[in-house]
C-alpha cells in the first residue's frame, strides 16, 4: 500500500465484508506527542478469540476465494516501520476494532494520502453501510457522519454522483482547514 488512506480503505472493506452496517474511522494526529493513530471500528460479526489470535498471520483469512489474508499484516508492517504497532480487538457478534499507531515524524511513516477519495470510494461502493470519519489534528477536528447526510437527503441516495462529489469536496476542504490550524 502506498499510503495510509489505502490501508484505511482496505480495513474498512474488511468490516463491510464482515457484515457491518456502521464503520467508524478515526485519524488522530498529535504533533506534540509525535503520534499518528488510525482506528477503524466496525459492528460486523467479529472474530472469536482463537481466530483473533491468528488474525495478523497472512496465512489466515475468513475469505474463501483465496487462502491468504494480507490486509492486517500489511498494516501491521506499515505501523512497525514507523515505530508503531497494531492492535486488534474483536468479539463475536459485536464487531472489530483495528488501531494502528505510528510516530508522526518518522522518516518511514507513510503519508496519509487522499482521505477524501477513500471516503467516497467507501460510500459510493457501499451505499447501504453508514460511515463516520473523525479527523483530529492538534486540537482541530473534522467530522463526517453519513447518517446525518442520509437524514438530510431523504429520498436522494448517498451514492448519487452530485452527493458523492459534494462529500469529496467537503472532506478535502475540511482537512485542509484543520491542517492550516
Amino acid at each position: 500500500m502506498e499510503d495510509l488512506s489505502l490501508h484505511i480503505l482496505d480495513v474498512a472493506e474488511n468490516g463491510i465484508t464482515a457484515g457491518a452496517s456502521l464503520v467508524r474511522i478515526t485519524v488522530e494526529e498529535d504533533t506534540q506527542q509525535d503520534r499518528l493513530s488510525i482506528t477503524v471500528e466496525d459492528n460486523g460479526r467479529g472474530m472469536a478469540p482463537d481466530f483473533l489470535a491468528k488474525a495478523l498471520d497472512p496465512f489466515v483469512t475468513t475469505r474463501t476465494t483465496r487462502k491468504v489474508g494480507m490486509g492486517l499484516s500489511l498494516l501491521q508492517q506499515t505501523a512497525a516501520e514507523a515505530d508503531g504497532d497494531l492492535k486488534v480487538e474483536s468479539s463475536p457478534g459485536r464487531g472489530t476494532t483495528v488501531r494502528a499507531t505510528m510516530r508522526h515524524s518518522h522518516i518511514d511513516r507513510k503519508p496519509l494520502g487522499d482521505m477524501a477519495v477513500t471516503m467516497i470510494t467507501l460510500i459510493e461502493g457501499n451505499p447501504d453501510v453508514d460511515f463516520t470519519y473523525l479527523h483530529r489534528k492538534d486540537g482541530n477536528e473534522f467530522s463526517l457522519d453519513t447518517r446525518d447526510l442520509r437524514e438530510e437527503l431523504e429520498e436522494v441516495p448517498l451514492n448519487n454522483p452530485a452527493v458523492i462529489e459534494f462529500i469529496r469536496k467537503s472532506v478535502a476542504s475540511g482537512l485542509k482547514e484543520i491542517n492550516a490550524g
Partner: protein
Amino acid sequence: MAKISIQDLKKIKEEQKARMVLREGAQRAKITVHMGTCGIAAGARDIMVLFRDIIGERGLDDIILTNSGCAGLCAQEPMITVEVAGQSPIKYVKLDSAKARRIFDEHVMAGNPVEDFALARGSETTAQ
C-alpha cells in the same frame, strides 16, 4: 471545527430530487470495481476515480458504480466486472487508465465487450 455544510447539501437534494423524477428509466450498466486488499494495492481506487470522473463529466445518470471484494485472482488485479443490461457480465483484468477508458467507451456506452482485456474468451478444446 470543520463540518459539512448542510445548506449546500439541501441545495443538492432539491436539484437531484427534480432529476430523479426524470430518471425513472432502466439502468444502462453496472460497473463493479474489485476492492480487496489485492485490488487496492494494485490501483483499484484510481480505477474507481477514473470511472467516477467520466460519469460526472458526461453527466450520465444511468450507470451504477460499485465495488466488491477479492475475487481470488489477485495477480490479475485491478479487475472490474461490467454488466450491461441484457448482456452477460464480463470480467476485465490487469487494468490501467487507458484500458479502463476503452472499456467504458466500447462496452459500457456502446455495448461491445472489449475482448482484448477480458479474463477469458473462447471455449475449452477436448483431446481427439
